[in-house]
């Protein structure tokens, strides 16, 4: 099967990006096989390894991530990881995932609730699923948390990726789902603030009609895309700063009162905004985004 061999070869090229010790950690990550090498969510350990190899390389050498507060990430059991979103393409999610996996022992995988449009795209949807990333439905959230996974949510939604540069680091209103689901399952919300993704691309405009026609949440016009073709989507190597905050326990009253739920959502959003400010201050100390 030459086609399979060439696919395998392409993936094997990613392997040297990961040190042996990290490769062993990926291989030791528990993927509960339900018959044909995947868990019930479709996670494939080999794909996870290759994705982590790429993520690790980007994390260490390209975005040169500086992060703190890993002690706030629960070492076991379910939890919701919540933060700000930006940067045209979701490299921020990838970096948080790589960061959590790299700095937790035993390694923890953040499984994001991903926008549906991703799963309509050939290869991309399968790749996301193979890495354990799921379409954002309530049942998927329930299933992941019940099995003790960390679930990543960007409550600003995919629209936040299309923020224009003049609105950098302004948070869009948070959706309520993460608070409601965390309260229902009694799991903590781990907030994080991420600085650096806003600088990786400069968003000029969002071609909404074209986005609607292509069934995408946005169609970016940046200083490099579409002028340089797909290469124009590659991010600039701006340094990322990630700060994790203390886990927040959500008031169970959020399940029965809209007022309490709104208050809890505001609390999470305020903490994320504060962590973003901390990240910006740390960046100044490091001499800026470069």
């Amino acid at each position: 099967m030459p086609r399979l061999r060439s696919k395998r070869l392409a993936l094997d090229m990613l392997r040297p990006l990961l040190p042996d010790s990290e490769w062993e950690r990926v291989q030791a990550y528990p993927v509960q096989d339900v018959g044909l090498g995947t868990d019930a969510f479709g996670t494939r350990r080999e794909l996870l390894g290759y994705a982590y190899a790429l993520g690790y390389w980007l994390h260490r050498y390209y975005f040169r991530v500086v992060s703190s507060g890993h002690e706030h990430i629960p070492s076991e059991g379910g939890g919701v990881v919540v933060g700000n979103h930006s940067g045209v393409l979701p490299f921020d999610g990838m970096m948080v995932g790589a960061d959590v996996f790299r700095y937790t022992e035993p390694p923890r995988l953040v499984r994001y609730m991903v926008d549906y449009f991703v799963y309509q795209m050939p290869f991309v949807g399968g790749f996301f699923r193979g890495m354990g990333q799921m379409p954002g439905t309530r049942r998927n959230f329930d299933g992941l948390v019940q099995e003790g996974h960390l679930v990543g949510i960007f409550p600003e939604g995919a629209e936040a990726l299309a923020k224009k540069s003049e609105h950098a680091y302004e948070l869009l209103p948070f959706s309520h789902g993460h608070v409601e689901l965390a309260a229902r399952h009694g799991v903590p919300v781990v907030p994080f603030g991420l600085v650096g993704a806003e600088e990786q691309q400069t968003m000029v405009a969002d071609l909404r009609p074209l986005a609607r026609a292509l069934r995408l949440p946005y169609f970016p016009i940046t200083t490099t895309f579409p002028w340089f073709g797909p290469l124009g989507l590659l991010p600039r190597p701006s340094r990322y700063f990630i700060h994790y905050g203390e886990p927040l326990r959500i008031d169970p009253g959020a399940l029965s009162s809209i007022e309490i739920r709104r208050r809890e959502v505001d609390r999470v959003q305020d903490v994320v905004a504060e962590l973003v400010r901390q990240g910006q201050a740390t960046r100044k100390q490091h001499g800026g985004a470069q």
Partner: protein
Amino acid sequence: MRRPGKPSPVGLAHDGGNEPGTLRSGKRRVFLTGARRRVAVHLIERLLADSDVEAILAVDRGACPPTLLGCDPERFVFASADLSRRRQVDNLFLLDRFRGKPFDTVLHLAFQGNPHGYNFKSHEYNVNAAQHLLEASLRHQVSKYIFLSSDAVYRLGPRNDYKVREDAELNLDPSAHPILRDTLDAEFICRAKMDDPGCEIMVIRPSGVFGGGVISGINLLFESNPPVLPVGFDPMVNPTTKERLSRDLMLAISLHGKGVFNVAGATIGPLSRFFEERGINPIRVPGPALRLANRLQRGLGMTRYHAGFHPKRLYFSLVLDDMKFERVFRAHARQVPSLGRGGDDTGS
């Protein structure tokens, strides 16, 4: 068993001795439609091996399947009838042989599910048969009615849950294939009567069924030479086998329980892995060319699979969550003597 006295409006079928998962008392007298289906043939053989099954009336259009010709005539009768005709359905319940000892179980497997040659008569057959059979069953005090539906009733798309439960969104798209709409019609007919206190009405939605000669989407796809799949998509599935499905139907017949149930195989995995496991090399074409390639293949006799019947099937995952069936039926398999002490477990 019909209870004496006036029943309360709902739920009596589960009261007292009729707890879900408990063994139904007495011997079974089974009325089975769609007897020419491979699953039905397998089930009939299983039922005949069970001493608690007193008699079986198997009905279909056409002749009796050859494998059933040698069955004990004291316990097995085959009848040919058009189930879309109300009178013919009634007559089957009034056969001399069964008038003294009426049926206690009706298993409706007859469904014109092949898109090839589908027309208005097929629609009449699918919907009317379900209606006439259910009405006759209630009139003749049948205590269990089982309709074998399909997993095609679920809406498929990128929003699907990793495991689809019985209450998931249904495919009510008006542009869906008429056979899917017939299946939903037949299901709704059953669901409308599900509160009947004297009859446990079950709708079983199986995942794709593997097995020699089985006319299911997934089986026809795997029997294609070669199977054609869209580039860049590899949905998660959990197909079952005809052996496992017939065992599940046997449990549904033998134990108390009513409602809508998913049944599926034990193995969950990407479609491509099922092909790899069987040593089959599918070819992949760009998504927009899939239907054309499928039509061409059908024209050349290389496949009987209809890509247009359930077009999103090869793109999006559909993994059935059958925990409800597991809890109510499979967990109590040991109570069914014919399945043995180990519950005669059949993997996928």
